[in-house]
């Protein structure tokens, strides 16, 4: 297997102060990777550093053989990397239609139209709420909207920050099913998830972060087997 994305000694943060420090790991192509760790461990920062939303403070970021850490977000998007940030990251005072068109901002008009059509076919809710403001949708609907916006460009690497945050158990399962289906269709997925048990069930690999550094990496079974990590991050008994 070739790695889709490799962090080589990456440091990143919001100011000069590094939150992710000297972190190295590789993300296998066509895999689902789950980042876990305590609050403030640097999971979101790591995810955003892959998309270029935080300040790059050192190290290299290699995407399919190309160094991308100096590229702007829009350039990374063009290379097939898409991010769905945590919590309601859409255009609240614009309609679903406008949100989707903005999601397809980097596409030419016919391609955008086709891509939007595909997503509306996949998620009929989008069509039903076509002219409603995004801010008036429910949490689950907004999550679907945001994932649809990210998928319009047919990314090969999808970065998801807490996709199940604030969702009802039922919607949460739907979202996980969508992620699983994406992975099956060949998209590489990296996600940060608080709902560790649900996430591990669909992950191929787990990376555990603490204080901005990687403290463990392995398949979900290995994480479950590690008593220390289990008590620290997964809650006492699975």
């Amino acid at each position, binding site marked *: 297997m070739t790695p889709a994305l490799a962090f080589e000694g990456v440091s990143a943060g919001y100011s*000069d102060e*590094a939150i992710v*420090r*000297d972190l190295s790991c590789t993300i296998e192509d066509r895999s689902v990777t789950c980042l876990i760790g305590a609050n403030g461990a640097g999971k979101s920062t790591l995810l955003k550093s892959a998309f270029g939303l935080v*300040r790059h*403070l*050192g190290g290299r970021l290699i995407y399919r053989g190309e160094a991308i850490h100096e590229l702007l977000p829009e350039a990374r998007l063009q290379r097939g990397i898409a991010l769905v940030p945590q919590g309601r990251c859409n255009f609240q005072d614009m309609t679903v239609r406008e949100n989707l068109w903005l999601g397809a901002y980097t596409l030419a008009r016919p391609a955008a139209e086709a891509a939007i059509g595909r997503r509306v076919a996949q998620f009929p809710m989008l069509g039903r709420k076509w002219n409603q403001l995004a801010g008036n949708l429910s949490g689950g609907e907004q999550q679907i909207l945001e994932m649809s916006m990210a998928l319009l460009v047919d990314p090969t690497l999808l970065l998801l920050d807490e996709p199940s945050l604030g969702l009802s158990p039922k919607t949460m399962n739907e979202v996980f099913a969508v992620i699983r289906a994406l992975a099956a269709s060949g998209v590489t997925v990296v996600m940060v998830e608080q709902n560790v048990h649900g996430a591990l069930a669909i992950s191929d690999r787990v990376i555990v972060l603490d204080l901005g550094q990687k403290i463990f990496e392995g398949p979900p079974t290995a994480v479950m087997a590690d008593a220390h990590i289990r008590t620290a991050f997964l809650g006492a008994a699975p």
Partner: protein
Amino acid sequence: MNETGARPRRLELGIGAAAAALLYLLPTAGFSDYVMAVATSACAYCILAVGLNLVYGYTGLLSLGQVAFWGLGAYVAALAAVDLKWSIWAGVLVGGVIAGISGIAVAFSSLRLSRHAFAIVTLIFALLMQLIARDWSEVTRGPLGIPALPQPTLDLPGLGRFVFDTPARYYVLMLTLALASIVVVYSIVHSRIGRALVAIRDNEALAESQGMNTLHYKLLAVGVSAALAGLAGGLYVFHLSVVDPSIFDFAYTEATVIMVIVGGPGCFWAVIASSIGFSILPEALRVTDRVRYVLYGAILVAAMLVMPKGIGGLLQQRRIAAMRPRPGQGGT
């Protein structure tokens, strides 16, 4: 951000006291009236800058209305002396109190919203004050202002009456107020209150989450700095011997802001030094006001682009950097 340790503090105070003593001896050096007048205005600017530093440097609130409190103190003191026939000292004091109260009122109303609203409201408050000074002519005498203000006198028991009638004598008066302001602000910023102010500036949410009533601290900072500005304005008009709406000139705000920015917001001594420097600079430069303000503007722009923390901040950063090597390769 705070200077640490008791020993450097004692050293700081020793140097400060020695410098103050030297400054009191300045009039004996036989400088011309012109030089003493410049020194007097330097003292006034110093008070404004130290006050703004308390509000912006330590508390993180950009006040663009210090000139409003300064002018308010000036008008109150002048009117009290001319219309009410009060003693000048009482007028200056009341002017300071009124300025302080209005500062708290402006801050209370705008800070409920945001620090952005505070900046805008202080600015508008200053403009409003100038308009009132110009238009409420029944009280303020309108655009021409109140001329021929009396000179302050001090009756010393057994020594007779002392009149502050020369620039050198006035300088001693202004210097005393400046030193008093420095002492007041110094003790605030080096106390528990000062640490609270810095905590608010650096992370207000965190300060609040620790149970701090941040609004009270912010009001205190604004109130003190407004009162100091009011006292300074009140005392200074009797040196000018006239007060008119130009006392609210936005140029004073610009000059004070430059002093704090270049000195370094939150750097106590550097701001004092830069306020003195920028008071003397125009006299040394001998250019027209226009060219000077173009220069000031350029300095402000340059400071914002390359050293938003001022010279003092730059020095501090270097000191910290020397103590603690940075992890990683440093930012871009």
